[in-house]
């Protein structure tokens, strides 16, 4: 089944961050070789005012750019950054990222809700990055965001789905897509998120800091596709005891 987000059909459920890569040429290679549809770009890195390299020159034209408000400390800064980002990239997709803490880089959900309210009214396709909280997710759904992007674990920790139980509540209760963002360190973590019913995963550090980012992106893509396929088929539930195909006590019931 194809994913539809912000009015667009998305083939690849792997979204890729661009801020930590060792060079910009890799962005093009990752997009082309791992078939990526959506990349995030920090507005602070996309200035056209630079006499040096511009990250936007390395992103193929048909790729969807989700501008990222990282660096914003409150909703007012996030809104301003999103407006600048839209102007720079001609993209109205925005990942709202507001961090009020530089140590753990955890998102400020309260400020994020405020920013999303304004940005949805401004006509953006809004994708808020949040700490995994069902109530916040529902509020964001009511506001009209395209998807919620809860973290699996704090940014860059590579710890996987430490917030698994909370993610499950969000996936189960909100109707908009859930994209797991942050903390995913291995393809198996991404597969797990997809098996839970996430619609996509956004990976940055684990690809950017890998020895071979292009092939690591491909590995994540395969894991995400596998996890999604399994979810769509319907994953058998884990059971405490073996479920014998020939019941041991069937004779009592005349089997």
């Amino acid at each position, binding site marked *: 089944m194809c994913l539809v987000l912000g009015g667009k059909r998305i083939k690849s459920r792997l979204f890729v961050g661009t801020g930590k890569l060792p060079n910009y040429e890799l962005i093009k290679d990752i997009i082309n070789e791992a078939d990526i549809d959506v990349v995030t770009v920090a507005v602070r890195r996309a200035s056209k*005012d630079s006499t040096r390299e511009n990250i936007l020159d390395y992103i193929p034209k048909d790729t969807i750019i989700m501008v990222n408000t990282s660096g914003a400390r409150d909703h007012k800064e996030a809104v301003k950054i999103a407006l*600048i980002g839209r102007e720079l990239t001609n993209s109205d997709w925005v990942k709202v990222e507001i961090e009020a803490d530089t140590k753990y880089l955890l998102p400020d959900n309260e400020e994020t809700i405020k920013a999303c309210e304004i940005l949805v009214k401004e006509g953006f396709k809004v994708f808020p990055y949040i700490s995994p909280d069902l109530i916040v997710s529902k509020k964001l759904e009511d506001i009209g965001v395209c998807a919620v992007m809860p973290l699996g674990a704090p940014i860059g920790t590579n710890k996987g789905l430490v917030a698994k139980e909370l993610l499950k509540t969000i996936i189960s209760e909100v109707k908009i897509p859930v994209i797991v963002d942050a903390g995913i360190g291995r393809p198996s973590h991404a597969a797990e998120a997809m098996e839970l019913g996430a619609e996509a995963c956004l990976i940055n550090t684990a690809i950017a800091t890998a020895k071979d980012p292009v092939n690591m992106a491909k590995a994540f893509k395969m894991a995400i596709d596998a996890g999604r396929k399994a979810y769509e088929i319907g994953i058998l539930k884990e059971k405490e005891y073996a479920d014998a195909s020939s019941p041991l006590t069937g004779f009592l019931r005349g089997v």
Partner: protein
Amino acid sequence: MNLDEFVNLYEEYKKKPSKKEAIDILNKDEITEVDYIKLLNCYDLDVLEIAARKAKDITERYFGKNIFLYVPLYISNFCSSGCIYCGYSCFNKIKRKRLNIKEIEDEMKALKKRGFQSILILTGEDNTKEGFNHLKDAVRLARRYFSEVLIETSPLTLDGYMELVNEGLTGVTLYQETYDLDTYKKVHLLGEKRNFKARLWAIERAIEAGVREVNIGCLLGLCSDYLKDVFLLSMHAMYLLKKYPKIELSISFPRIRPFKGMNFDYTEVSDLELVKFIVYTRLLLKNVGINISTRERSDLRDNLIGLGVTKMSAESKTSVGGYSKESDSLGQFEVSDKRSLDEIIKVIRSKGYNAEFINWVMI
């Protein structure tokens, strides 16, 4: 911040750990202040190698494969303080100069043309009204050309910092120079800089005035117990991060460099010590930027890429001006890494890192 408490903690634990003890510390996810003291006192190269690998991983997780480049611009060398380690000291009979607005703009244009997006504007310790207005003009002008505008000047009042934030100031660099009070008194002989506490608290005024980032540091070699200085610097950083969790904080470990007329004894700090400070500090302060300026040799700077360093100055002049045309003033200290920006970018890339110029978009 209760400095005495940290001094006591340092004195209590400042002994060389066994290799096993040091490796046990490295196996922890989070190290404590006491662990950090022990590591600073560890000289085992095997331990340092293990720590360096961990520091590299942590740095990449937090900062990606990026080295952020900035450039300093000295706009004035007028100074009312007498600090024995500084070429701009009022005791030094050097030609004093203040760039006029046209000259500042020429310098900024020249730097912008080279690709810099982040500028650090420096002056001597000039607390006059004239000096402040000159600085304010420079910040206003810098905002037109650069995404990030930082200053390194004498401490300002809260109102002073707020005025500059309104003009576009994004960050403040302010080094305590040394956290050892006795040493501080011995090296600061004249002027407002003699006031240790006034300097210590000033960085908080800058944060409260609304700057996004601050950079703190101490001049290694001023205090003979430089391990204590490094420890107290890191404690200062931890204190600031706890009190102001939104602030982007960087630290610097500058080592004393010679300047014309220099005449005082200082303690040599070896390359090994510097590497230790960077690596072990990264284990304690995972999210803090670590800055290495051109006062360090090019070969050392190259080898530090990937060990915890996140920011570097490039193509620096420590004379007043000197980018758009040759400066006729003496430098505050001798620059060691004199390579061009393009050469430095080439090395960064060859090490598998991206040279970044923008870390903040001016909004």
